């Protein structure tokens, strides 16, 4: 395999989707190139086994974009993806989402589970997740988080899976997505209106999804998935058919979907890409502002920080809750994937700046005064993504001014940690206080 050939393969998929399947405008910049955030992040989600929440108005391609990406990254014909999608509605049950008892066996007094396609295939799409009542959202928490699907004391574990969930904006029929579920999504992105001209083309074009359909393979896959064979034995068979579908796509469309081995290889390559010092220090700076509270030790959503606090100018004063540990994990995962895709040898601050707002937007709760202050601002993004982008931009300005001193403080921290007799560096940013806390813990 030629060096960087995988990146080109993935870029070809990105371009194919943008040019033929999911018309949209580029709305985000990475390293001087402009991309469409929905397609790019969906692609990274598919590659990195991530979880993406896609928001947007009805009919603007939220589900469609995810379906195309999944079909090309995981080599599944669209028919199979449609057949395994879970749609959010109040009457949804565990039996439809996860699995049901094998009624034939149950009649004979035996317990066995018939697993749903959703729980079995690596591509999981939940349509309109916020139409699931809050009580039923918790049903998919574990599956979403770890790929463990349990039913009747039986369990299957997905080794490789990615999840796409779509959500409409709030209206009469929607529920809020419960906080623990929201936090499990790595990124949130908006599927946007492509503009009148592109939209007009979509209307004119005939059905374009047929290019990713294949009735015979779809039937074959349905047959394998509904067979009684153990889950572990089904997977290689599924892969076989998927590879055959991948070949078919390559022959007919000229783009090469990714095989399992290739996906694993890509992930291994992404995993090896390290953060450079600036990317690491900048991420730490953001995390410090999103979790620090001088008065109460850390941010907690039930505690309101005081007016007149020394750290009033930082993000910690504008938010209610604390950044979860999943936030840095998501940022790392997506920044590594982006750096890999752009053929960079290290994750740098530009990669972090691009992915961070999308990993943050759904996780952070802003104080009411901040919301009312900024809700009328002129913007191009949905409000939560706009706020997250603003926050990252503000911290990035701060980082530009303080980067050397901050890195020095972290360097001195390292020396003290290894037993050096130095004093931690002083500074105004919450990160300096966090460094001190870590060193104090070490000393005691």
């Amino acid at each position: 395999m030629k060096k960087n050939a995988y990146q080109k393969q993935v870029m070809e998929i990105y371009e194919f989707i943008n040019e033929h399947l999911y018309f949209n405008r580029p709305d985000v910049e990475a390293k001087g190139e402009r991309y469409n955030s929905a397609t790019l992040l969906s692609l990274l989600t598919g590659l990195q086994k991530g979880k993406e929440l896609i928001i947007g108005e009805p009919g603007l391609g939220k589900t469609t974009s995810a379906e195309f990406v999944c079909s090309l990254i995981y080599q599944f014909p669209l028919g199979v993806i449609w057949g395994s999608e879970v749609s959010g509605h109040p009457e949804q049950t565990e039996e439809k989402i996860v699995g049901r008892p094998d009624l034939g066996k149950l009649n004979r007094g035996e317990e066995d589970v018939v697993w749903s396609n959703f729980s079995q295939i690596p591509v999981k799409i939940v349509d309109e997740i916020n139409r699931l009542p809050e009580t039923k959202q918790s049903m998919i928490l574990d599956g979403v988080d770890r790929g463990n699907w349990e039913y009747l004391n039986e369990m299957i574990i997905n080794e490789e899976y990615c999840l796409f969930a779509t959500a409409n904006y709030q209206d009469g029929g929607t529920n809020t997505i419960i906080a623990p579920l929201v936090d499990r999504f790595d990124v949130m992105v908006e599927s946007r209106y492509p503009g009148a001209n592109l939209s007009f083309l979509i209307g004119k074009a005939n059905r374009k999804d047929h290019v990713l359909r294949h009735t015979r393979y779809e039937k074959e896959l349905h047959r394998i998935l509904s067979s009684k064979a153990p889950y572990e034995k089904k997977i290689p068979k599924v892969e076989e058919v998927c590879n055959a579908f991948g070949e078919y796509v390559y022959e007919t469309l000229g783009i090469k979907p990714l095989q399992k081995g290739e996906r694993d290889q890509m992930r291994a390559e992404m995993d090896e890409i390290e953060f450079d010092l600036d990317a690491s220090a900048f991420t730490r700076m953001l995390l410090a502002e999103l979790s620090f509270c001088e008065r109460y030790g850390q941010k907690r959503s039930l505690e309101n920080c005081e007016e007149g606090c020394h750290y009033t100018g930082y993000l910690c004063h504008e938010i209610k809750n604390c950044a979860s540990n999943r936030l840095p994990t998501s940022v790392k995962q997506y920044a590594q994937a982006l750096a890999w895709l752009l053929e960079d040898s290290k994750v740098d601050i530009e990669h972090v700046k691009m992915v961070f707002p999308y990993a943050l937007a759904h996780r952070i709760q802003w104080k009411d005064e901040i919301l009312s202050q900024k809700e009328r601002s002129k913007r191009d993004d949905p409000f939560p993504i706009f706020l997250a982008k603003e926050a990252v931009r503000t911290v990035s300005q701060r980082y530009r001014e303080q980067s050397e001193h901050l890195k020095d403080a972290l360097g001195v921290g390292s020396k003290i940690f290894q037993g050096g007799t130095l004093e931690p560096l002083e500074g105004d940013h919450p990160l300096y206080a966090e460094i001190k806390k870590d060193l104090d813990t070490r000393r005691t």
Partner: protein
Amino acid sequence: MKTSLSQKKGLINSTGKEGWVIRNPFEEFKTFTFQKADIPLDQIIQSAEVVMDQIRRGYEKLLEEEAKELVWMVQYNTIIKAYEVAENHVREIDYSAEDIEDFCFALENTQKIPYLIPGPAGLYISALCNYAKEEEILLKLSELKTEINLIGFRLPKGKRLVIEGDAGDFTGIGLEGGELVVEGNTKNWTGAGMRSGKILVKKNIGLHTGEWMMGGEIYVGGRIRGLGNIVEGKVFERDKLVYPGKARHPNLYY
């Protein structure tokens, strides 16, 4: 025994190769060496300060050499000598037209330059203008409380010096082909001894205008209080040629 047990299991072993290691959360920064980042604004301010110091030192030396008692008499010899001293200092400084303007204000406003003697200061500023890289220099001196004498001394051909505000006595004397524009008034002896070039005074001009001028032109937008003994050259008052022309008695008040 507790210690030996923990060591055996390798539970707490911050430096060992096996077992649990308390991770240094700052590990990746251990080799970072601090380099002071000079942001462009800092550099600009810093370099401007360095230049201003050099200009100031040159002026102080000029005063030390030429105005020891803080007294300076305007005489042909003292002017020539002081200008030579000023030239020698100025030639060694790398400055811009903006620095000249800054120096004019520093003359009045900073504690670092304690005395403004209008004569030497004017010669020094003239030397700065004459040796500046820019062909056109604008000095906004209208806010300055003191009128500086001798400005535009020996302004060479190809240079254009514009003064916003008033200038003092001996403005543009010995002009050597340059163009001197004064947006306000000038005082006595303007353009005295000039050889060639052009002086444009937008408002009024004092006595002895063009005394011993050998060539060039003086244009006055307002009124001329009095002409000097002109050898050669032209003087215009409100677009009207007043020299050569109807003989007007030098220094006649009118």
